[in-house]
């Protein structure tokens, strides 16, 4: 490939900002209101962005800083905002994330919160978790991971050893969270999945608008995380400091890490861990699902073998998808992400170990302008990622397999199942049928059999 020109500006970014990730993670805690310390626009823009994916209300409070506060400090507004949120929502937790504005003016949030607690704190006051999320360093994934770490750091306390397992599952879909819950149940594992926005961001039709939606990781469970038998942390490109590391360091909780269980081998790896931790064999329901998946892969392998894909999005998701695509005979030619964990390329290589084929080009810190430029030289058949790649896929007349976040141009984006044998099955059918559909549509004959 010719050398890609490196532009100063970012065009059509393949990443989001840090406080958005933190807001999503906070939304997965029981009775928690996410709160952005910054100007009103941040909260509103992120709400709009999140709503368009989940089709679900999400109230994110803001300290609504104005010109005066930007000069003299946002402490008073932060306190007023916390008071108002407490009055109105009666939450058990408020998750405060900073923004570029308050990071730049240098508000000392822990100090302001300590003052607030002194001035207004009572026994009934909500807990306040704070996390530093300036959007000028890192992406929404760093914000998400930082918020999870902050929750663990600030809410988990010394606990009696217990039989639970902590599952820090990363930024996955609501369907994925529900699936992991079922898997743990099937292994008779009492799991604390953190965060759990499977109900709060994918709830039922209601008769009343909930102040705060039901669901989220129970606070009691979070408090006891230190005593768990182990922590499983999902992700192949996780930062050095994570919630799992905090638990390990503070409470000596055993930490096990494995990549997102996307495809056969990554799912096997997770199931092996669960089998080991529970002392149980993999439940029949899942071995059967695995068997059916492999059977269907045999049925469909010819239609997709050798196809070339571009996969983009969050690094962990890209690693997982690339690994799965390799298992079904699709060659990922480009792995791209707006993130820059510095672990992306090695994680992709590790995920592809043992499977034939050339390694893909792996690029971190790129935007869709770069992706498009590179893809043009790579003879791509298929695009895999969230809906922001649609413009590029459309331009190049390539089918887009929608996975991850956000899906702004389809219903049910939050319900896409990526994980486990069940997720792999859905993805396999979707990908294979998309390839078949393209061939059928492009054909002048219009065969009515495959």
């Amino acid at each position: 490939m010719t050398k890609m020109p490196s532009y100063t500006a970012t065009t059509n970014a393949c990443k989001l900002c840090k406080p958005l990730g933190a807001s999503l993670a906070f939304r997965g805690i029981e009775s928690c209101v996410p709160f952005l310390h910054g100007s009103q626009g941040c909260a509103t823009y992120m709400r709009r962005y999140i709503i368009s994916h989940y089709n679900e209300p999400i109230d994110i409070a803001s300290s609504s800083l104005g010109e005066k506060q930007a000069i003299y400090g946002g402490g008073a507004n932060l306190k007023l905002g916390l008071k108002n949120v407490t009055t109105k929502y009666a939450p058990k937790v408020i998750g405060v994330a900073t923004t570029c504005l308050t990071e730049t003016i240098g508000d000392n949030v822990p100090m302001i919160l300590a003052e607030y607690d002194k001035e207004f704190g009572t026994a009934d006051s909500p807990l306040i978790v704070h996390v530093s999320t300036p959007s000028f360093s890192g992406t929404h994934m760093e914000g998400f991971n930082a918020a999870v770490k902050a929750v663990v750091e600030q809410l988990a306390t010394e606990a009696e050893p217990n039989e639970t397992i902590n599952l820090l599952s990363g930024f996955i879909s609501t369907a994925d969270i529900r699936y992991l819950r079922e898997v743990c149940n099937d292994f008779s594992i009492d799991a604390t999945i953190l965060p759990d926005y499977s109900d709060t961001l994918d709830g039922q039709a209601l008769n009343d608008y909930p102040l705060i939606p039901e669901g989220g990781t129970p606070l009691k469970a979070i408090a006891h995380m230190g005593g768990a038998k182990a922590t499983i942390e999902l992700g192949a490109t996780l930062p050095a400091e994570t919630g799992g590391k905090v638990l390990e360091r503070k409470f000596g909780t055993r930490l096990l890490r494995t990549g997102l269980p996307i495809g056969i081998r990554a799912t096997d790896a997770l199931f092996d861990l669960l089998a080991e931790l529970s002392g149980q064999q993999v439940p029949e329901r899942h071995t059967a699902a695995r068997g059916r998946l492999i059977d269907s892969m045999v049925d469909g392998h010819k239609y997709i073998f050798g196809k070339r894909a571009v996969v983009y999005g969050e690094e962990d998701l890209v690693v997982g998808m690339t690994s799965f695509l390799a298992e079904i005979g699709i060659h990922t030619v480009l792995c791209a992400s707006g993130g820059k964990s510095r672990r992306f390329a090695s994680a992709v290589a590790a995920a592809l170990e043992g499977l034939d084929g050339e390694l893909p080009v792996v690029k971190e810190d790129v935007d869709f302008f770069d992706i498009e430029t590179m893809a043009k030289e790579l003879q791509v058949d298929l695009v895999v990622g969230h809906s922001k790649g649609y413009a590029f896929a459309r331009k190049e007349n390539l089918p887009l397999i929608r996975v991850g976040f956000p899906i702004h141009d389809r219903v049910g984006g939050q319900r896409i199942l990526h994980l486990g044998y069940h997720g792999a099955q859905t993805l396999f059918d979707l990908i294979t049928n998309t390839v078949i559909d393209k061939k059928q549509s492009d054909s002048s004959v219009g065969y009515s059999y495959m």
Partner: protein
Amino acid sequence: MGTAPLLQDRSKQIHRKGSAPFEIDCNKDSLAGAVSQRACVFCGSRVVLYPIADALHLVHGPIGCAVYTWDIRGALSSGPELHRLSFSTDLQELDVVFGGEKKLAKALDELIDLHKPKAAFVYSTCIVGLIGDDLEAVCKKATEEKGIPVLPVQSEGFKKGNKRAGYEAACTAMARLVGMGDIGNISRHSINILGDFNLAGEIWLIREYFQRIGVEVVANITGDGRVADIQRCHGAALNVVQCSGATMDLANMLQDGYGIPSLRVSYFGVEDMAEALYAVARHFGEPEMLEKARQLVKEELATLLPELARYKAALTGKKAAIYVGGAFKAFSLVKAFRLIGMDVVMVGSQTGTKEDYIELEEITDEGCIIVDDSNPLELSSFLKEKDVDLFVGGVKERPIAYKLGVAFCDHNHERKEMLAGFQGMLNFAREVYGSVMSPVWKFVPRRNKEVSS
């Protein structure tokens, strides 16, 4: 939950018609922690300038502001589509420490070479206001080097005055383009269209109406906009301005600088659309033009009204709630609902002015709730209290309605349906009908209490 507790500090921004002499507070900063539906100053500027399709729109700041406004509006272009790309200087920690001017200058240099825009707008965000980058100087230098106008938009998000301040910043930037183009060969019956954003192609319809009555459109400034048109828009005889605050500032600047008068209109609903054409015809004082306008309205209504009647029959007596960005749109919606037999029981806006709310109070029925700068908890409590059948708003209001099992009509910038003009009125009725009459409401808890609760 009962009725959501209303925050004491917000009570003066809510009025129930008939309950007391009319009084409402508005144009205040949003209350911290109240989960306002408002955005920020940057948002105001971005929405106004967004549809200028052959300009480069570079957001100077960290990535968020640019990424959340990428291809965000349904503002169509008949030609170039540069406006649908998202450009950001993507400021990083070191830029914040050492300043972003160099990065901005380099980004402008590269992007202008690559995309060859007719002008560039550089939006300032919160951070830029704080680190003190001299946007004016960088833009001036780029203008000289690149030979196209490069215009700073002073839209720091935290600046006083919410979205409206952003409108003004956008207008100030646009005003700097005005006067640069040739204004020969412009008819004396000519107008600029301000404040229509060409969502779903609406401005093409409106232009056609004006052409049918013999009016030349010089520039559709904010919808399917072009730099060259804006540069010669001072040659028009009249500014026709829609939308509450968005472009009034530009109209005022054109009045002050070039003596061009302006008319405020709305293209939503039959009455307002017709009045817009009549008002322009009256302004030019041409009986023939007025006659053409009457003829046009007559023709359009002849096909529209029988079709509307069908929808009206089904919708009469249903209750509607309205929450929109600018109050001006709300006026038209109140009238449009009346035309299809529906009762408006709640109406509010993010950024209405005192005058706006006085007018709303005048045109609504007894008991109607009027609200300024509301939030999800209030809105949902109003929907429940009034047992609303349909809510009109934008993306952020949609899940509030849907969660409660209330029908919804998107009247904001993301919609894909043309709602302006006579054709738009029919689309609006269809859209309302299509949501209100859906069988889905038979299954939601609200209408099915005995089963679900």
